[in-house]
């Protein structure tokens, strides 16, 4: 395997953390190779941010083994901060708004012991990768656009050429088109600077750029794999049937759901459903025939790939259901 | 016809204002609890402390026993009775508040004055009393007998105190020893604080009541506009700018009235002296509180950020205090400063409160007081107008 030649830059095994009697993180184990993008995903309160706070040595009272940027967090403590970068969710918590972008770079660079020249050089290099317009470099951050602020914020995270860059919800609060841009920039950075990235997010589209994802729920790991592998775990290896049915009703959905070869049905539009069935090659025809027999008008049938978002929905739904059944 | 809708909207906006004020528990606490607490502190100090009884430590030096030489008889006349009488009275504590700490006899110790001055410099004593040579002779022969009174001048209060106390002391000395003829002044204070009232509280109240009410109304309202992020959103509903402001004035006025009532109640518990009508006192306080509120809302409307509003508050408050007449009598100020002082509330508020409390004047029966009262109201009106104008002109974007 290609990956085994690489170093594990993050390795967490059997991480447990409690605040008083509250067990926050339960037996967390995952790892990540150098140069990869790791997504920590889950709904709010799942424990994503807590894991990052352990990794950046802000919560020392954990048990288990935690290696970050090649250092044992327990032993190194806050020394690790020299080797990592961090991009908070809110720019106001990261940038001095009254300073120019380059001033910000200089200040944060100096904290890592960079000289003014080094910091500015490194800053300009990243600004160029992130395509921040050169004429704004010397204007105050408060006068920049939202997208530019975000990119300056990301650049600050990279100022010390960190081995691992942590990004907290980089796409939250950004509109759809910008979100796409930011993900593109992150991928570009990952390719050009080869920084390992850990992205904490509940935005499932981010999985598109992740090499691995950790799915979390209530402080426990639900899944840890590549997004492709996870989708592959769905019935028929993630292949789905999209049906357009005129006058779609809950009753019809229920009928489909009750077929023994149908695993899940998701309504995705007014007249559209996605059907996850076993052995799609044989069963799709069977399903359509049965529907037609029942006088249900199927206006179109297409086959396609399930998205990660769908995987997440189905996975969480099934956990909820199994819990309810117990 | 729009009036009715406008009215009902104001009622709803009022509800919003109260919810906002209630939501900020700390600000509400500051507004309602702090003035009564501080006024109670004054009252308490007035009840327990004995500032009048604080002694002034004295060093007394006498040069009197050195004798007096009569050239025409070629003899030296020794008479030192009067200085020892004076010193004995001093030592027996017959002079109020003056405490004989160190005594020097200059006829025995030629360095007395030098030592006494060292005592003064090192704060061992606050006052040197020097009985000159020929003190007794002057009294016996009918010349004015002069005692040198050398207070520590670095504190003007000590100078004033020593002047008053020595004046009393010499009177007692003359009277007790029946040195005639005396011409005395007999003082008859009127409009003062009666014996049974809390004196410190009474003096403090003329300045501290307006000060507290204005201060807490300012802090209550200073962030009211600048802090309310959804105002721009609110303005794209049918609510009008004037209505939003009106609701703020009304809601805060109600808090302010509660605050005045609480403060006066607490002050009364500790023996606030009010010789006039309590209704007039409340009216005056309401006007003063209203001023604080108008100023607070004006600042809040002018400011772009919280920080800016807070800084303006500090600056405005400082200038108000400096020009209040508390430190410098307004008539002693430069003419420009006087003009500013009369734009500030204390120039009106202090006479209002003191005339009502001490002289029992009524706002509506005494023209001077009425115009003091109207002065505050007129300035408030100007401020409300300005606030409205700025609020209207300021572009608020969602």
């Amino acid at each position: 395997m290609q990956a085994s030649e690489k170093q594990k830059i993050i390795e967490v095994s059997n991480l447990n953390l409690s605040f008083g009697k509250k067990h926050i993180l339960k037996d967390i184990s995952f790892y990540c190779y150098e140069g990869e993008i790791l997504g920590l995903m889950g709904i709010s309160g799942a424990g994503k941010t807590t894991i990052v706070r352990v990794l950046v040595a802000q919560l020392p009272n954990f048990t288990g083994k935690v290696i970050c940027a090649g250092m044992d967090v327990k032993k190194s403590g806050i020394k690790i901060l020299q080797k990592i970068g961090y991009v908070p969710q809110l720019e106001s918590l990261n940038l001095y708004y009254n300073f120019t972008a380059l001033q910000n770079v200089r200040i944060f660079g100096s904290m890592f012991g960079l000289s003014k020249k080094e910091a500015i050089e490194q800053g300009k290099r990243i600004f160029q990768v992130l395509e921040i317009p050169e004429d704004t470099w010397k204007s105050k951050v408060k006068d920049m656009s939202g997208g530019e602020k975000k990119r300056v914020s990301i650049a600050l995270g990279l100022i010390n050429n960190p081995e691992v860059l942590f990004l907290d919800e980089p796409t939250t609060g950004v509109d759809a088109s910008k979100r796409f841009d930011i993900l593109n920039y992150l991928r570009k950075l990952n390719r050009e600077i080869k920084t390992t990235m850990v992205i904490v997010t509940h935005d499932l589209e981010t999985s598109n750029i992740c090499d691995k994802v950790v799915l979390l729920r209530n402080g426990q790991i639900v899944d840890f794999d590549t997004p492709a592998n996870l989708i592959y775990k769905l019935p028929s290896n993630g292949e789905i049937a999209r049906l357009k049915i005129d006058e779609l009703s809950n009753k019809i959905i229920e009928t489909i759901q009750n077929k023994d070869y149908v695993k899940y049905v998701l309504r995705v539009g007014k007249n559209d459903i996605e059907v996850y069935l076993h052995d799609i090659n044989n069963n799709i025809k069977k399903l359509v025939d049965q529907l037609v027999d029942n006088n249900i008008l199927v206006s179109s049938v297409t086959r396609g790939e399930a998205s990660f978002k769908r995987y997440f929905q189905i996975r969480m739904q099934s956990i909820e259901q199994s819990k309810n059944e117990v | 016809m729009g009036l009715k809708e406008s009215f009902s909207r104001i009622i709803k906006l009022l509800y919003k204002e109260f919810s906002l004020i209630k939501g900020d528990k700390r600000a509400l606490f500051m507004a309602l609890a702090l003035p009564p607490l501080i006024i109670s502190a004054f009252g308490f100090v007035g009840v327990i402390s004995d500032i009048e009884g604080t002694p002034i430590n004295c060093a007394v030096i006498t040069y009197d026993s050195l004798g007096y030489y009569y050239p025409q008889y070629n003899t030296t006349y020794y008479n030192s009775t009067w200085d020892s009488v004076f010193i004995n009275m001093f030592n027996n504590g017959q002079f109020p508040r003056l405490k004989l700490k160190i005594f020097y006899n200059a006829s025995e110790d030629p360095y007395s004055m030098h030592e006494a001055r060292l005592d003064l410099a090192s704060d061992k004593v606050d006052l040197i009393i020097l009985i000159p040579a020929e003190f007794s002779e002057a009294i016996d022969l009918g010349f004015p007998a002069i005692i040198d009174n050398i207070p520590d001048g670095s504190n003007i209060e000590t100078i004033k105190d020593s002047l008053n106390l020595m004046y009393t002391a010499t009177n007692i000395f003359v009277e007790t020893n029946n040195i005639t003829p005396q011409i005395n002044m007999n003082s008859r204070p009127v409009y003062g604080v009666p014996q049974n009232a809390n004196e410190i509280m009474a003096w403090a109240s003329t300045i501290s009541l307006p000060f507290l009410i204005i201060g807490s109304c300012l802090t209550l309202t200073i962030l009211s506009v600048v802090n309310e992020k959804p105002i721009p959103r609110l303005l794209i509903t049918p609510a009008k700018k004037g209505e939003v402001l009106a609701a703020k004035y009304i809601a805060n006025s109600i808090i302010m009235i509660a605050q005045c009532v609480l403060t006066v109640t607490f002050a009364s518990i500790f023996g606030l002296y009010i010789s006039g009508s309590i209704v007039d006192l409340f009216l005056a306080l309401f006007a003063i509180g209203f001023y604080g509120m108008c100023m607070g809302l004006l600042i809040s409307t002018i400011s772009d950020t919280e920080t800016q509003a807070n800084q303006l508050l500090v600056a405005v408050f400082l200038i108000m205090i400096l020009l209040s007449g508390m430190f410098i009598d307004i008539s002693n100020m430069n003419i420009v400063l006087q003009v500013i002082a009369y734009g500030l509330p204390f120039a009106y508020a202090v006479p209002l409160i003191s005339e009502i409390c001490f002289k029992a004047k009524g706002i509506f029966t005494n023209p001077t007081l009425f115009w003091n009262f109207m002065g505050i109201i007129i300035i408030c009106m100007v401020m409300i107008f300005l606030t409205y104008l700025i609020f209207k002109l300021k572009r608020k974007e969602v």
Partner: protein
Amino acid sequence: MYSLWNLIKKEFDRIITDRKSLIMLFLLPLITIIIFGLSSGGGYISTFDAALISYDSQSWNGTSYNNYESTMINSYLNSSLINLNSNLVFTESSGFNDSKIFNSLPPKVKLLLYNGDVAVIVVIPPNFSETVNKSINSVLYYVYDASDLMTTSSIGVSMQEPLLLFRVAISNFKGVVLAFPSPEYDVPSWYNQILNYSAAILIIIIILGTSINLTALSVVSEGPLPRMMLTPANKTNTVLAKFISYSAIMTVQALVVFFGSMAFGLYVLGNLIDILIVLILVGLSGVSIGLLISCISTSEQQANQLYIGVFIFLILFSGAFIPLESMPAAAQMFSNSLSITNGIQLFLDVSLKGMSLDLLRVSFILIFILVLLIASIVIFRFRKMEV
């Protein structure tokens, strides 16, 4: 060391970009000094507007006496401390009531006091000329407006002057015992007395107020600070950097106050450098108080309220408003440990007494600063900061 230096540079950048606060910092003290510099008055002897009413009958049991009434009135008219307007001299032949003097006065005279036109009414009783003639004790009365604290505290002394003028006029000094004031360490009369008598309290309070105000927001208002703590920047250095840079700004401010007050006629008997040292020491203590407030507070609003609370508290315990001697022993000790109390005393000692710096008080201030600074660092280290 390198990190500390960079943090200091960052603080300066921040302070300089916050122009509005910076302007306030220098403007406030100047405004204060200008207000006091442009005002006059404030000496320890006051003048009072007076009216006079005489009931002197100049006769007794059919015997008429020398007219001492007009001599007395002239003494008042000539007095420099009691301003008697000749229009306000009234004579009455009857109605004098020893026990209810004010109530028995004619209404127009009473009204003068009620309306505040005069502060005092001098009353010459019916038997005045008689007593002076017979060389027995004479008594005059004065009714004053006691609702004015200033009048109450200094009218007695001012009333002595016309009496002396009268004694001079009748050339009889028997029974005169005078306490003649010659204050030591006072402000010379040719200096601006109102500025100088209040200078110690005023300047110390202003320096403390502005320096606390400036620093009270330095930690809470720095949004990116928690993020900064995810770099190798050291927490102790962060607090120290703030202390050092704000102290530097404060030093400039102390210089402005120093030269500003010189320009408006501050009287300093002692060493000028000593005054400057006192200002800077007090300013440093203000910076450390502000830092502590900022480290404790969780929001700007809270810091501001704490600032106002602490400031009122400091002023109350400074000994300037309630004399130290009248406080309980514990409160006195506490008050003596505060930088404001020591600062005011040092300023007075140097400016008016011409003494050199009292090293005990200086070390008290230094200890005060150190304790607060250490407290700030400790609190900052334990402060929960989440990005």
